[in-house]
């Protein structure tokens, strides 16, 4: 267990954070009444968020080892253990998840009108499995939680979704399941080689090149679908459009990060040689995703689809940052994962607020809101600016780091991603212009009421993070330095200004 620093706090903080929502969901079974269910879910998510905060204060930024470790033997005959631990890559993702969940509950306050209790149970189970995925250091535990995420998400879309919810939920389920099967194959293959399901133990082994390539491809398919990378993205717009607001927020902010987290946790350290082999292809796929997402977003009339396709573009930047394999790129990618969670989550919440009022996601029906909903459009404007990486907002820092990492080693590829930045400005300004100003013939919006206190409370914390990360990202960057440099050394790339992959790979 040399990779794990055991938990030294008074209680098992990771297990507590992870299982609090599940316990809350079980209690919820016995709570009658919609309002009580909502209040209880809100309470549980807030308590979970508060309990997770000490993770940040007690996190040791000087080490790359997994911290707050918990290790219990589970199925000894197969060497399966219940192992939890977090490092600089997962810390922020966990905190983002716990902090977003109360907002998701609040965002569903009025949106969900039927089966409220069941909806809240799904949200809470979802939270437990998402947190578990980020914490698990045993592959079987990881896989169980990974699969467990699918069911509540399937229900969220399939039960509380829009008109084409069945189509969307089945498409989502099939795509992700297809990827998961490949993941399972890879896990078993690795187990047969190492005799252990411990994820850290699988890193740094001398696998043959051929084996690495097959394992990498299996991983890649699973995670690329989840990200989603072009051309595996087609489930995403359908799922986003049909999902209820909270579903879209969870999907965009947390679930998509599972894919990129998978790249960072599994592909890079377990199969470094194969990673180096595939780097150019993945970089070009990322660029394709950035451009494709941008162009498609530009053409959308449906606000949710627009943001869904913008996610394809943004996640393209994240994968670009990961696979340039230098410090700036990877740190930028991790930061951008958080940024995308904050900003895109906020945008989906914004669209949900309009949907609650008009029951339409059509951009043309939301034209010219500026005069009647000044507070709303102010929030929307800031989140849109953040989404297009306006300087001073969170996404700018992430995009800057990713592109700086890109330009350092792959000038041509980074240059090809620049039109994606222009497109982001184009589709976001287009949406913003339509919603705030519209044209000369706007629909009558005079019945629209501006945001109430609950809605302001939902958006304000996200706006706070937009500017905090945008202007002073050091508290967020500091926690990842050690883990990122350790990760890059595992891939065999000297971090910083040493020899880079690019010089080895491409003339």
């Amino acid at each position: 267990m040399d990779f794990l620093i055991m938990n030294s706090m008074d209680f098992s903080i990771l297990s507590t954070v992870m299982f609090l929502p599940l316990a809350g969901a079980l209690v919820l079974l016995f709570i009658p009444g919609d309002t009580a269910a909502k209040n209880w879910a809100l309470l549980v998510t807030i308590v979970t968020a508060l309990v997770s905060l000490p993770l940040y204060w007690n996190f040791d930024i000087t080490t790359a080892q997994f911290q707050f470790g918990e290790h219990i033997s589970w199925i000894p005959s197969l060497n399966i253990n219940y192992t939890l631990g977090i490092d600089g890559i997962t810390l922020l993702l966990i905190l983002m998840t716990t902090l977003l969940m109360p907002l998701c509950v609040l965002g569903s306050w009025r949106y969900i009108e039927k089966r409220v209790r069941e909806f809240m149970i799904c949200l809470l189970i979802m939270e437990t499995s998402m947190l578990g995925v980020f914490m698990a250091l045993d592959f079987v535990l990881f896989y169980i939680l990974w699969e467990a995420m699918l069911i509540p998400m399937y229900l969220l879309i399939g039960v509380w979704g829009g008109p084409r919810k069945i189509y969307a939920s089945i498409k989502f389920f099939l795509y992700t399941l297809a990827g998961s099967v490949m993941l399972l194959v890879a896990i078993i293959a690795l187990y047969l080689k190492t005799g252990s399901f411990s994820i850290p133990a699988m890193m740094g082994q001398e696998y043959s090149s051929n084996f690495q390539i097959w394992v990498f491809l299996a991983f890649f398919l699973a995670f690329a679908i989840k990200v989603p990378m072009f051309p595996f993205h087609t489930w995403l717009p359908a799922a986003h459009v049909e999902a209820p607001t909270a579903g879209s927020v969870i999907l965009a902010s947390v679930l998509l990060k599972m894919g990129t987290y998978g790249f960072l946790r599994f592909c890079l350290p377990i199969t470094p040689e194969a990673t180096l082999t595939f780097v150019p292809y993945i970089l070009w796929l990322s660029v394709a995703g950035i451009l494709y997402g941008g162009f498609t977003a530009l053409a959308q009339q449906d606000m949710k689809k627009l943001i869904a396709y913008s996610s394809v573009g943004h996640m393209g930047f994240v994968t670009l940052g990961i696979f340039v394999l230098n410090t700036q790129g990877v740190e930028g990618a991790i930061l951008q994962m958080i940024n995308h969670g904050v900003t895109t989550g906020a945008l989906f919440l914004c669209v949900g607020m309009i949907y609650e009022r008009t029951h339409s996601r059509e951009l043309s029906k939301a034209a010219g809101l500026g005069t009647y909903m000044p507070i709303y459009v102010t929030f929307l404007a800031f989140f849109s600016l953040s989404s297009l990486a306006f300087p001073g907002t969170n996404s700018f820092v992430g995009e800057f780091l990713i592109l700086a990492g890109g330009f350092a080693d792959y000038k041509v590829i980074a240059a090809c991603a620049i039109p994606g930045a222009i497109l982001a400005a184009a589709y976001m300004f287009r949406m913003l212009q339509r919603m705030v100003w519209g044209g000369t013939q706007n629909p009558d919006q005079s019945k629209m009421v501006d945001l109430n206190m609950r809605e302001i409370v939902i958006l304000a914390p996200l706006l706070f993070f937009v500017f905090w990360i945008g202007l002073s990202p050091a508290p967020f960057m500091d926690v990842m330095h050690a883990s990122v440099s350790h990760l890059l050394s595992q891939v065999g790339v000297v971090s910083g200004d040493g020899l880079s992959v690019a010089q080895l790979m491409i003339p």
Partner: protein
Amino acid sequence: MDTIVSVKPLLAVMTALAGSILVMMSGRKPNIRESWSFIAAVTMFSIIASMIPTILSGKTLVYQLFKILPGLTVTFRVDAFSMIFAVVASFLWILAVFYSAGYMRGLHEHAQTRFNTCFALSLFGAIGVAFSDNLFTMYLFYEIVSVCTYPLVAHHQDEEGYQGAKKYIVYLTTTAKGMLLPAMILIYVLTGTLDFANNINTGIFTQATVDANSILVPVLYVFCIFGFAKNGIMPFHNWLPGAMVAPTPVSALLHAVAVVKVGVFCTTRVMLYVFGVDLMSALNLGVPTAYFVSFTILMASVIALSKDNLKARLAYSTISQLSYIILGVALLTPSGIEGGLVHIANHAFSKITLFFCAGAIYVASHKKTISEMSGLGRTMPFTFAAFGIASLSMIGAPPVAGFVTKWKLLVGAMEMPSHSIGILLVLLASTLLNVGYFAPITFKAFFGKRPAGEAYAGIKEAPLTMVVPIMIAALISVIIGIYPDFMMNFVKAVTG
């Protein structure tokens, strides 16, 4: 070079932001709202003016606000170079507050609160650009200016307004994101910093970096020149005529002073403080730049000749005059740089006068085209007298401000080791063109025949809130022509 840590630059920038918030909150009471604009403008100018003695004594004020990454900070710096722009923009804001109150109320414009809020926010961006200490801070405020001026351009919310505003934002953000952003990131990757150098000669590139990237560095230079499309260099100039759909105070302060000057200020700041005179000479970037912008100078003048709409003619005149500033700096000779930089101030005072006049004419008579204005000068003598004075400045005739520029540019051209004749010819030709498109306006207004059937009944001079700022701006154009030292002191401090 002495640097003093001082909060004053931050205060100056924040004054405009605070002003915009106060304006927004007092939207229901127009008099109080306009007072906030006025108070913000005066406070900002006072803070900036209070820094003048320190700057003229050779010191630099800096204030670091945020540290984002190593070498990437939000930092303010006030030196002689930033003062040239900041003094002019903040002073003219005071005039513009009065003028726009008269204009907007005179025409009973809608959404005046939004208008005034965005106006103050644009000044927030402009002064932020003037006081930025590094490329990132500059980019941040440059983009703030782009976004905050959109509502001003689209103000009328009609088809024409939306079209103009769309063109505006597309041109400005595409160039900024497509060229400036990659250039900035690459400069960061190559040098590890985005801070400006402390003098105009050295730049921030080391010799080793330049040697290793002999193609990339000139490419970055080109990206920086075009990336700041607010400078109006052709072929990325088309947003400016499109933006003329905005109310005239916007055209006056923003599209003659704040926005376009932000463009040239950024361009020249990057030329001198990122690349530096030494590197530009070594890579031979000056002369091609000079010839390239010469094309804009001449072409824009030719187009201006063909425009009958007064604001359109002024817009093309602005495009032409902006390139003088870049031309001067691109000559890379001390007099050339001085001539270019002092034109930031000279052009500002004169061009704002011209736009103010155009707005006053519109408020008083609802006339937009030059051909309709024949004989109007006899009805509106003060306005057209100011127009005449400012035109002389544009032409470069003594004793008005523009003469100082022309003189310095001519000297600068003659100091060049080669290509003097070419630049001199450009300056000569453009002066003649300036006469060609400005002189007839004033002449016809005073001496032309009134159009048949037009009695100008009921038309009288524009309200005092408009005429007084016009006269002040025109007067200053003359004063800084006769006593150019006030602005020249800053410029001389830049060239050392």
